[in-house]
């Protein structure tokens, strides 16, 4: 039985590692300026984790194979070096690993969070509510109209609770169900939650950030590839959570302007 355990374990370990080694399951191609750092970090970690995973499993299998169900009274030995060796090795190897990862991780993280958005970044406000995203562009005056929760009227497509009757600034605001952005231009996305916690996640963009009610958060990013990508909610927000999604539409600058005009006419 001990030998069988060893064999089964080896098979399991190799089978588990195979899809990773063959890159059968990987994140989609990165379309952001900051994403490559995260991807490098991910693959480094994958290498180290994979090494320790296979190492530990195979050693376990080998020892069980060799040292299980030996004949009665077989000579018992202790591992040369004993506990001290184990502890020192663990400290040195893992400690170094942890330190390296910690530092690298800091770099990748800093790219996303410690650099403020450029002043010329395009400001877009996004609102997450049960169970859809809506996006608001400031319009010609470059100002967002104020939000009045009591004015929200979804049946009338007033998702943000604007008050055009009294608030001039809100009249030219452009509200859209898709997030259209120009390529290679930094976007400063202001995040507002209408009801409960939600999250903004675009896999290709390597951006995930929660919407926290009552907390005005923001993220900034630059998309480098034209195309249509899925925005999904990753924070459990209620029964429609699975279906809470929108599209990120990365366009060429002039297409974007056309789109903006078109939308403005619909408001």
């Amino acid at each position: 039985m001990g030998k069988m355990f060893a064999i089964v374990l080896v098979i399991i370990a190799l089978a588990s590692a195979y899809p990773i080694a063959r890159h059968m399951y990987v994140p989609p191609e990165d379309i952001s300026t900051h994403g490559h750092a995260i991807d490098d970090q991910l693959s480094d970690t994958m290498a180290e984790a994979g090494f320790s995973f296979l190492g530990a499993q195979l050693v376990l299998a080998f020892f069980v194979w060799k040292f299980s169900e030996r004949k009665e009274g077989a000579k018992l030995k202790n591992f040369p070096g004993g506990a001290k060796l184990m502890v020192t090795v663990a400290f040195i190897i893992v400690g170094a690993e942890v330190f390296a990862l910690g530092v690298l991780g800091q770099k990748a993280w800093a790219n996303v969070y410690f650099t403020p958005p450029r002043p010329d970044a395009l400001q877009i406000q996004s609102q997450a509510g049960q169970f859809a995203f809506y996006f608001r562009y400031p319009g010609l005056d470059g100002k967002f109209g104020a939000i009045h929760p009591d004015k929200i009227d979804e049946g009338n497509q007033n998702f943000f609770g604007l008050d055009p009757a009294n608030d001039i600034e809100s009249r030219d605001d452009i509200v859209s169900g898709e997030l259209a952005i120009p390529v290679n231009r930094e976007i400063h996305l202001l995040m507002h939650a209408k009801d409960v916690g939600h999250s903004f996640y675009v896999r290709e963009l390597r951006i995930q950030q929660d919407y926290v009610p009552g907390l005005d958060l923001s993220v900034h990013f630059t998309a480098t590839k034209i195309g249509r990508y899925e925005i999904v909610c990753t924070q459990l927000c209620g029964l429609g959570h699975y279906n809470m999604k929108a599209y990120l539409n990365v366009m060429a600058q002039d297409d974007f302007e056309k789109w903006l005009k078109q939308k403005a006419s619909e408001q």
Partner: protein
Amino acid sequence: MRIKHIYLAGVAILAAATMTSAVPGGGTVSGKITYEGTPAKQKPIDMSKEPSCAKQYSTPATTETVVTGPNNALENVVVYISAGAPDDPAPSQAAVFTQKGCRYTPHVLAFQVNQQLEVVNDDQTSHNIHPLPKVNREWNKSQPPGTPPIVDKYDKPEFIPVKCNVHPWMHGTFAVLKNSHYSISAEGGDFKLPNLPPGKYTVTAWHESYGEQTQEVTIAGSETKSVNFVFKAKPY
């Protein structure tokens, strides 16, 4: 069975439009609902998050909070006898509220107190039906495709906003009325309340954005009184 539901829905709408009470050959109140001013622009609905619905529209569907017709006709106005008529027993056939292409048909569904209500999902996606009553009992249920219709009834008269929690743009209204004398202004804004026994009535017209108006009318014999309502429309 889906076909049957659509059919039922048709019947129900028809019935709702020309509901007749127990007094044949009575008087009739008829008229036209119009608006003055500029009504709010009906915006296109972005259904991209629900492809199975989006692909049902060549041009994007628009909101239905203010549906207008030629020469200022105003549709989806519920006209009913709010006073003067006795309460009627609920009719036997069910009022059917269908979810199709991620919209509610009809947008405004009128039916009677204790009349059976059937909510049907004709879409390939899960819907959630959440009526928001103030005096009646509240419920909030989801309806995956291929599940039996949700059956319910309301025991107090009320105008109940209905929303779908999964698709924020889906909004409709249940008009729960206590007698059978009601009509919903159709294309051209016309309505007709036939078979009214002689008497003095209060006619009320209700619109989801513009509120309600009332007029007194007295019916003697089998005459036809014409009553018109004009709503003030605001751009915002």
